[in-house]
């Protein structure tokens, strides 16, 4: 007995993290976890599907596909030559034993093609499959668009399926609740109007323990920068607001945060296909900045919010580009260092790896800026493979993590490829992943935990706050 235990221990010790991931994946299969994907229940989906009628299904599908969509969608459907070359781009496909139903084109076949072939006459069960594909098996990460020889925008096609699902009332419950929060409160997390300024004041107080002069200037008209965050920050990552305040303060910038709704730059309505609500959220965000007459909006380290404010929401409102200049934190931090506004006390003692969020690389090409900052802060970035604009998605983005607990196991297991990618870094002795996106943190944390990777995640802001000189700070 003890022999066996020793033997097991010795084997475990000799295991690389990559082998550990493979072993865990094999165990997951034995445990039937992959097989359970088809049995997942979601109240929002299931009750919504139970209410569907054939007339509603057909009129909704055709209303969107023929009414809202036009020549672009038609061109995508007609141009696709079914070559399958998009498959290798998708982490869902790669993580599910290359099951073709998870390939990008496979998912289009299961949704859009099916709807077109049947002139919108889907059964409720087919509608269920469509919403599950669109909301839980695709992160709209656009990696497939970058791999398609025709540049077919599959994310746009899947977004259209989400739009149809939203109009059918079959969106998964958790993300629908989040979108409802947006619609009611103009923020993602049901943060009440008085809780927000309270939180800012609380974080200012916290910050002043360290830097007595610290202020979080609220509603300062004419400031150079308006800093906006996603609602999960006041809700459960509050220290990030404090950290940002310290960075703004130490860089000597004229900045502000808005007191009124519009402070939240996030947008789950964009990911449920509720574009009307998306438009309201974005309008309020731009307008709060305009009413403060700031020069720029600086966004916290969030990918999807950046996509929403920089790329998607503005279009819905008829703006070719955002009506007010906006920069993601990556670009903002890089600029602060280039201008010499921030000085470092010390460097992070280890080498790190950098996980690029889809929305800041394929959405804005900020990979080099990210590395510039991360290299300054640490002993250097060791690249994971693939990296930069070809990086695999975290499988949390695109609203997938927001579909909540029912879908968590599927989400983690459907990104085994990411676990392998990270394990290869861990096997090289890299313990820390820098990633400037909230969703990526959420997704990677779950993957690290499930596969036992023992790695730590950092925002750029975490490292800057930790390592920068703070001349006005109270000595400890």
């Amino acid at each position, binding site marked *: 007995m003890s022999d066996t235990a020793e033997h097991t221990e010795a084997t475990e010790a000799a295991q690389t993290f990559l082998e550990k991931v493979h072993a865990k994946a094999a165990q997951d299969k034995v445990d039937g976890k992959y097989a359970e994907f088809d049995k997942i229940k979601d109240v929002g989906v299931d009750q919504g599907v139970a209410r569907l009628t054939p007339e509603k299904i057909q009129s909704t599908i055709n209303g969107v596909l023929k009414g809202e969509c036009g*020549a672009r969608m038609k*061109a995508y459907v007609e141009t696709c030559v079914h070559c399958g070359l998009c498959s*290798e781009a998708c982490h869902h496909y790669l993580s599910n034993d290359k099951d073709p139903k998870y390939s990008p*084109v496979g998912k289009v076949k299961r949704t859009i093609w099916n709807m077109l072939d049947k002139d919108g006459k889907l059964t409720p069960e087919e509608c269920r499959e469509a919403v599950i594909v669109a909301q839980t098996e695709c992160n709209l990460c656009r990696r497939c668009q970058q791999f398609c020889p025709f*540049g*077919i925008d599959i994310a746009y096609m899947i977004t259209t399926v989400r739009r149809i699902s939203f109009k059918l009332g079959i969106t998964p419950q958790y993300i629908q609740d989040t979108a409802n929060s947006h619609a009611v409160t103009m923020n993602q997390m049901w943060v009440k109007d008085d809780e927000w300024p309270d939180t800012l004041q609380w974080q200012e107080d916290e910050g002043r323990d360290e830097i007595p002069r610290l202020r979080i200037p609220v509603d300062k008209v004419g400031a150079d920068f308006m800093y906006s965050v996603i609602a999960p920050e006041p809700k459960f990552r509050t220290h990030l607001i404090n950290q940002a305040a310290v960075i703004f303060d130490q860089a000597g910038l004229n900045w502000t945060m808005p007191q009124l709704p519009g402070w939240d730059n996030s947008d789950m309505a964009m990911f449920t296909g509720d574009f009307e609500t998306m438009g309201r959220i974005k309008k309020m965000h731009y307008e709060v900045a305009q009413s403060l007459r700031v020069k720029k909006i600086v966004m916290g380290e969030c990918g999807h919010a950046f996509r929403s404010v920089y790329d998607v929401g503005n279009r819905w409102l008829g703006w070719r580009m955002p009506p007010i200049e906006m920069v993601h934190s990556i670009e903002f931090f890089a600029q602060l260092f280039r201008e010499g506004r921030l000085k470092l006390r010390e460097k992070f003692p280890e080498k790190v790896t950098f996980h690029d969020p889809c929305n800041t690389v394929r959405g804005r090409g900020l990979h080099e800026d990210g590395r510039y900052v991360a290299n300054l802060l640490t002993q250097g970035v060791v690249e994971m493979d693939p990296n930069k604009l070809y990086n695999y998605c975290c499988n949390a983005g695109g609203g997938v993590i927001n579909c909540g607990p029912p879908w968590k196991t599927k989400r983690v297991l459907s990104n085994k490829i990411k676990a392998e990618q990270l394990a290869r870094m861990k096997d090289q002795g890299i313990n820390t992943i820098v990633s400037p996106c909230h969703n990526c943190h959420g997704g990677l944390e779950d993957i690290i935990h499930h596969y036992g990777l023992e790695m730590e995640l950092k925002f750029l802001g975490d490292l800057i706050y930790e390592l920068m000189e703070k001349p006005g700070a109270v000595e400890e």
Partner: protein
Amino acid sequence: MHAFYNLVSGPLVWVAAAIFLGGSFWKVYSLLSGTKKKDGYVFEYWSWGDAIKSYIHWLLPFMSENSRQQPVMSVITFLAHLGIVLVPIFTMGHLVLLEEGILGWSWMALPGQVADIAAWIVIAGCCFFAYRRLVLPQVKFVTSCSDFVILVIVAAPFITGVMAYHGWGDNLLMTSLHMFSGEIMLAAIPFTKLSHMLTFWYTRGYTASEFGAVRKVCDW
């Protein structure tokens, strides 16, 4: 047989050419006018510089990440597409017919042997594409019967052309079949998946414009 030859070498040539040209015009026109109607942003964001860079990266092998990851497919698809476009335009027999029949002038033809090899490459390419459709699960899953019909439509003029060139089989029959299958292919372009020849420039160009001009990142 002569009647068939006369048909395919006479009126059907004109019919096929008219369907190809008219159909292509209709295809492009309806795409652009439809875009103007509901997807006007495509024109708004269109950036020729980014589009042209993207065309080059995606038309030549190994210039995109995906192409580098799929070396065999990249080489075969590049050569096959090159052959499909160039062989019909630069084959001696075609040029002679064009010069005598309509244009009155001509351009340099490919040496017969080169055209022959290129035609074989196209045929081999079609076989390879069919193999992918039959064997690779991710391709098989999205393949329908019409995808094989397209391959047959494309391969047929090249197979019959090679047979006619080498004098395999009854020459008049082969030449007639070659003309007929070529006419079918030409006429099929605007109305089948072969229309990707026309729509590639639109889908690729728009993606390049969004990536390059809005998101400041390359799309290859």
